[in-house]
């Protein structure tokens, strides 16, 4: 599904990713943990196609196709989805309007038909009920004045509606209360499928109790420093990142 090969990324003079290699197989749920400022969000932005990052070396392949030449729209239409660590607020654009624009754009890009409004409404209603998102929130401007937890739930709603191939969740658990964490995790688990992969970036073992990863990667200093199974997350809980930061130095 996803193959990142020897990825080097800088912003200005600053090198952030330094020869990162990562493989996520079809249907796999991979977790990435790592200290603050180590480049996890940068990796997710580079995969999603945000401007402002210099990829000086390396490749990012999705289903064998290098996506680095595509713009963000094309990547989304190719099935890449990023649940943002800090979702943007879009004043004046009603959440419903936005959801419709996104769903229709992806349908068009894939040569499908746009949804009729009643079908669209039904779909959104069902998906938002599962995530316990109140209907009146959908009438409000996207993310404007939403609480931290509401924004995260809104990201998962978008994922549920867009049904991506590769979903990157960047600290989706931060800002969620205990109940919301379970609701969001259930939402993710419901989408687990052989044809869909997840890259779950988190600082906390707790999320991984709900979303059971197949693999856990430790990222430090712009690379994957260690890869293991779910037990690695438990280990980190005890030992912290000191060993990795040291090792890489």
């Amino acid at each position: 599904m996803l193959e990142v090969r020897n990825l080097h990324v800088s912003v200005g003079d600053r090198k952030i990713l330094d020869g990162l290699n990562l493989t996520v197989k079809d249907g796999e749920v991979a977790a990435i943990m790592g200290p603050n400022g180590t480049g996890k969000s940068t990796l997710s932005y580079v995969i999603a196609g945000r401007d402002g990052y210099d990829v000086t070396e390396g490749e990012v392949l999705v289903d064998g196709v290098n996506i680095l030449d595509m713009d963000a729209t094309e990547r989304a239409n190719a099935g890449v989805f990023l649940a943002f660590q800090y979702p943007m607020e879009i004043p004046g654009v009603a959440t419903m309007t936005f959801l419709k624009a996104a769903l229709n754009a992806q349908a068009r890009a894939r040569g499908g038909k746009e949804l009729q409004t009643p079908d669209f409404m039904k779909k959104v209603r069902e998906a938002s009920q599962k995530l316990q998102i109140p209907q009146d929130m959908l009438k409000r401007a996207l993310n404007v004045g939403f609480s931290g937890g509401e924004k995260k739930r809104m990201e998962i709603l978008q994922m549920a509606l867009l049904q991506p191939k590769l979903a990157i969740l960047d600290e989706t658990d931060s800002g969620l209360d205990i109940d919301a964490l379970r609701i969001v995790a259930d939402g993710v688990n419901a989408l687990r499928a052989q044809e869909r992969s997840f890259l779950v970036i988190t600082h906390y073992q707790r999320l991984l109790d709900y979303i059971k990863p197949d693999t856990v990667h430790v990222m430090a200093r712009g690379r994957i420093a260690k890869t293991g199974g779910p037990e690695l997350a438990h280990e980190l809980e005890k030992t912290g990142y000191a060993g990795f930061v040291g090792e890489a130095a």
Partner: protein
Amino acid sequence: MNKPLPIRTRTEAEEALVATFDSASSNLRGASDLRAAAMARFVKSGLPDRRVESWHYTDLRSILRRAAPVRPGDFMPVERARAGLASAEAQTHAARIVMLDGIYRPDLSDLALLPAGVTVASLADALAEGDAEALGALTGEGQGADDPVVSLNTALMQDGVIVRVAAGVEAARPIAIANIMSGGAPHAAFVRSLVMVGDGAKLRLTETTAACDESETQVNEALVLRIGDNARVDYVSRVVRQGAGAISLHTLLATLGAGSEFNGFSFNPGVGVDRRQMFVRLNGRNSTLNLGGLSLLRGRQHADSTLVVDHAVPDCRSREFFRYILDDESTGVFQGKVVVRQHAQKTDGAMKSQAIMLGDGASMNNKPELEIFADDVVCGHGATVGQLDDDQIFYLQARGIPKPEAESLLLEAFAYEALELIADEQLRARFIEQTGEWLAARGAA
């Protein structure tokens, strides 16, 4: 305007305007003293250029190179005029009052639809008859008296309407004043209208400036609006369909009585040069003023909103909210002056202008001014000029929305937030549609 300007030679346009007055003054009916005095002021001032503070960003002297001639009122056959009118239609339920080439045309107006308690009369007739009330009201309270464009309008006004709404009347349908230019070769019109809204009355008023084709029209309009105590007026002015060389000059002279409310909005989806000057005086306590505007410009279009809001009495509230979307090499101007006189305590004023620059060559000029002589007031202003937010565009793109569509969504949202100030749903819907068309044309370019 207070400083004497250095003597300079008259431009071709200035010569032509003075000559128009000299040759036409026999046809211009009534108000001869008023006209002569106004022309004398214009002869002294000439067309305003950058050195005139209130015209600093709209150098009319160099913009108006050639003054187009005024046309006789019967230039265009009625049937064609009717067809031209259709393009200016925005409300299906309004009573339409039509000026064609500056002349009031009852035959093109929907006088049968006038709501009870509302009367309409020709300004030219009233002036010819020496109607003292009309003459007295015509200059508002002397606001803008030394503005050269107002002087020209006063000197050369061909016609217009006097609309009276009787006290206590809630006009059942909107009144839509349409100033239609027949088009073809460049031509000019000078229109002055007077709207008097009695105490406790309510009026929805729309004013449209339009041409029957994309010709280079020069329209100088002035609207005097007197709002009685506890009355309410919702006013929308807009320009439609004019050529790239069109020059539209519009002056509003408004006074608000005690406890009244005035909501004014101007919509400009792009004409050559548009200058809207609004002089509003809050004359009675507890009155509320909301002024808003939206300009969508491209090419070398130029839109200027210049406001003078005069808080003459205590306890009033004013809000100004103007937005601009500027593509290509277009220019936006916002000048907002809020005056709070010494005894106008407890004034609550807030003014905002916001522009999104799309074109590298676009420019925005903001000049907010507060002249506060009272000590117990809350007044503020803010002006922002910026580009579309890259992060927001990325977010939308990351959901599969193509970049041009993402930009349109954000621009639409920016425009809607201004259009929301319009109470009339049909007008708002029409302007939203026009905004969509404007954005689509941008995408297609």
